[in-house]
């Protein structure tokens, strides 16, 4: 069973899909296409960030669902992205890891990689405000 929820319109439009589930944390994937290309031959940093953000929210949603808080509203507070390698013309993956999800705020790390998982191309740290549904 998976706690996965549908990805938002932005993810769908960019071609981001759920690749598989890793111990309850979804791994997201985006194929290389002109839609995610920055300078010729390379992945756009913004597309990379968008993918990591979607992975972070998916991981957080899964964690919240597991503790019976699936209806919680999520509001991003900030994101810090470190770009470590240029992404090239190939499939990119991303996975979020919930570092701490309290009652009001959550801190989620996300990582993006291509053909070699031990060599991430970017890292992100995202802070999210948790707002209980009315």
């Amino acid at each position, binding site marked *: 069973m998976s706690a996965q929820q549908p990805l*938002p*319109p*932005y*993810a*769908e*439009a*960019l071609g981001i899909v759920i690749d598989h589930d890793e111990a309850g944390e979804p791994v997201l994937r985006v194929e290389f296409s*002109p*839609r*995610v*290309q*920055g*300078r*010729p031959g390379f992945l*756009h*940093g*913004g*597309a990379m*960030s*968008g*993918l990591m*953000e*979607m992975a972070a*929210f998916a991981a957080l949603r899964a964690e919240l669902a597991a503790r019976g808080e699936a209806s919680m*509203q*999520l*509001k*991003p*507070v*900030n*994101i*810090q*992205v*470190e*770009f470590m390698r*240029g992404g090239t013309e190939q499939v990119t993956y991303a996975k979020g890891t919930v570092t701490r999800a309290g009652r009001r705020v959550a801190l989620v790390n996300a990582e993006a990689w291509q053909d070699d998982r031990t060599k991430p191309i970017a890292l992100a740290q995202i802070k999210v405000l948790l707002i209980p549904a009315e």
Partner: protein
Amino acid sequence: MSDEKRHVLPPGTRFDPSLASRVMTRHGHGGWLGLQYHAHGEDWVELALPWREDLVGIDGAGVLASGPIISLMDNATSMSVWTKSGNFVPHATLDLRVDYMRAAKPGNTVIGRGECYKLTRTISFIRGIAHDGDPADPVAHVIGTFMATHGSYR
């Protein structure tokens, strides 16, 4: 580093964001997002991101996802570096931090203003805001750095 390598533009030509945007906003990720040139000054560039239904994010209700805002600010700040430098040198984003003040209003075009506030030979320091009509009430603040990967900014 030879001058030929430093200057991708013809000698004596300064980088012009209004001309460069014609190409840069038509292809790739920026083209898909529909980014448009808005304005520029000596060390800043403004790009526009028109609202679109398929760019909506997590909570639905027509609020733009944050991914497109990051891309808008990445492009606007990147162009502000070349604008201040005058040299169109290849560079890479090292890091970018975005603080989200509030959600962008559904239907509104978001303006991203990127500013390069310091250039060294290799590193450029940038900051910027995104707003949806009133620059005094921003949607987001950003800060970050780029690195010249070949050649130098100055």
